[in-house]
């Protein structure tokens, strides 16, 4: 009887290493495959959008007054006389070489522009997610543990307000109050006018670059500029993260193994953090990755309010001046980051949850 019982639990009787490595590798491969398909779809959609855009790419190159011959020549040169599918492969080929074409506004390669503006967004969103996690996770845990208490009510209101407020309006109000009236923070832009281009660009993130250059003045000024937009963005991720943390925790706290931990004589603090929280870590990473991606999106509107020279500003400015290559290039890059974050959290889930194997 007991022999039977034990052999049941021991079914995969391989050496421990291959036993744990091969399925992991297989999931990684399968994930990569599905990424490739998703990516292809993403590029196809942007390609289609580019084709139905009411802007004639030839006209925007040759100008209104060009002769029919010049027009036809460029038309041919751009491959527009080829079938749509062939054109799509040209597009794919270019994108794979990180070639998004040139911007109509400044006649520079879009990929260079994006490389230049992206660190600003990264800096903003990263600081935002730090706010969101550092405040949101403990708030969610507390709200779940003290369900129905005043702290739960506060967490609920905080989240509801976050879900209901237009981010660009909140940004304006923040500027009005903390910059216009109180004067606590720097205004729009990344640094004050006297600090522009003082520290050499290494990472493109001014907070990091100023520290590398040990220029505390620039750091302070940059910090006073980033703190408001970053905490507003952080507030949005906080709303989501705290709600999700709360519902994950509520589910775990009613589980029977929590009673087991209490029966063992554990303190409630340890029951919460060593047992319940351990069970939500992987889910939480997914939520954080998703809200990080969400912040990239939220930064589009925030960047405009705060004149923040990031990818959101870049896409919108390009959009308003009908700079198609820039819009599509930006969209592809943001989409790509979205996909990567999704995969990242997916993989973590599969690797770190013992039940997923």
């Amino acid at each position, binding site marked *: *009887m*007991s*022999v039977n*019982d*034990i052999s*049941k*639990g*021991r079914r995969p009787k391989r050496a421990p290493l291959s036993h744990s490595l091969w399925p992991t590798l297989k999931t990684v491969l399968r994930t990569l495959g599905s990424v490739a398909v998703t990516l292809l779809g993403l590029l196809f959609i942007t390609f289609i959008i580019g084709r139905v855009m009411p802007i004639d790419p030839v006209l925007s190159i040759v100008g209104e007054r060009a002769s029919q011959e010049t027009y036809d020549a460029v038309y041919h040169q751009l491959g527009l006389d080829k079938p749509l599918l062939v054109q799509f492969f040209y597009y794919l080929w270019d994108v794979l070489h990180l070639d998004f074409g040139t911007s109509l506004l400044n006649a520079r390669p879009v990929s260079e522009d994006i490389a230049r503006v992206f660190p600003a967004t990264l800096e903003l969103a990263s600081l935002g997610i730090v706010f969101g996690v550092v405040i949101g996770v403990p708030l969610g845990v507390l709200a779940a543990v003290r369900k129905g208490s005043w702290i739960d009510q506060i967490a609920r209101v905080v989240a509801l307000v976050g879900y209901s407020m237009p981010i660009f309006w909140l940004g304006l109000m923040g500027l009005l109050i903390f910059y216009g009236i109180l004067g606590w923070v720097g205004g729009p832009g990344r640094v004050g006018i006297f600090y522009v281009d003082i520290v050499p660009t290494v990472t493109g993130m001014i907070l990091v670059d100023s520290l590398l250059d040990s220029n505390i003045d620039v750091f302070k000024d940059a910090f006073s500029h980033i703190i408001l937009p970053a905490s507003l963005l952080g507030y949005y991720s906080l709303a989501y993260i705290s709600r999700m943390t709360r519902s994950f925790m509520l589910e775990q706290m009613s*589980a*029977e*193994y929590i*009673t*087991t*931990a*209490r*029966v*063992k*004589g*554990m*303190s*409630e603090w340890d029951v919460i953090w*060593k*047992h319940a929280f*351990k*069970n939500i*870590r992987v889910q939480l990473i997914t939520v954080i990755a998703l809200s990080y991606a969400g912040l990239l999106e939220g930064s589009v509107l925030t960047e405009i309010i705060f004149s923040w020279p990031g990818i959101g500003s870049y896409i919108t400015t390009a959009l308003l001046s009908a700079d198609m290559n820039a819009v599509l290039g930006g969209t592809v890059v943001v989409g790509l980051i979205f996909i990567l974050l999704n995969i990242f959290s997916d993989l973590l889930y599969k690797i770190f*949850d*013992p*039940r997923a194997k």
Partner: protein
Amino acid sequence: MSTLLDVENLWVKFPTRNGVFDAVRGVSFTLGRERLGIVGESGSGKSMTGRAILRLIRAPGMVEADHISLEGQDLLKMSEKEMRDVRGQRISMVMQDPKFSLNPVMTIGDQIMEAYRLHTNASKSVAYTKSVEMLEAVSIRDPERVMRAYPHEMSGGMGQRIMIAMMLIPNPEILIADEPTSALDVSVQRQVLDIMDRLVKERGMGLIFISHDLNLVSDFCDRVLIMYAGRIVEVCEADKLHEAKHPYTRGLLNSLPRLDKPRDRLEVLQRDPAWSEAPSVSGRI
């Protein structure tokens, strides 16, 4: 027989939208170094009684009693911190389904060692040796491998034996077993019970065995309390269960099929509202 636990007039109450619901209504009993069975249907308050002793009923639920004394100390007067020293170390509990009562993301070894180290200042290596010994004591083969494994890799019978090992490793005086075999395959139930029985006897512990299975309890326990609607309706010696007098107990017994007395039609339990009105019978000695 020395008394380990003395429960007097225990009530468990839950406020609901339609007023207060009394899950346990004035239950009294004592426990010595014996095997005490508590039998009843689901909702009779038997599990609540077990959890109330460990003060595991969470707000808004309320526990009231004249006293719940563990060797003379009233558990209800203890602070939460003092109560933590009682849990695990002096009174422990095995729950119904190891699938849910073991933490799914911690290795079995970590969970057992944690139970040991909570109440001793033992080093990790001592706790490890001790845990392996304990797993051997519950007839787990290859305990070192099991220490590294996660709960979902275990069968139900193994899981429950691990649970028993974990709950007994701090050497408590009382074990509350809340339907410990109900979720298990019939073929391993007996084995798990035997292991539990042997360990409880060896260590001279008191056992509260909560179950809905009359036959199992009468086989396994020394004394039985029969609960109905939050009250004890009858107390009897386990081997004399078949001489029980209360109509509810009789009804339960008659609704069970018996190989030695086959019948075409089993009786259906007829409930008398008076049962739940009658005062609780005391299970104290």
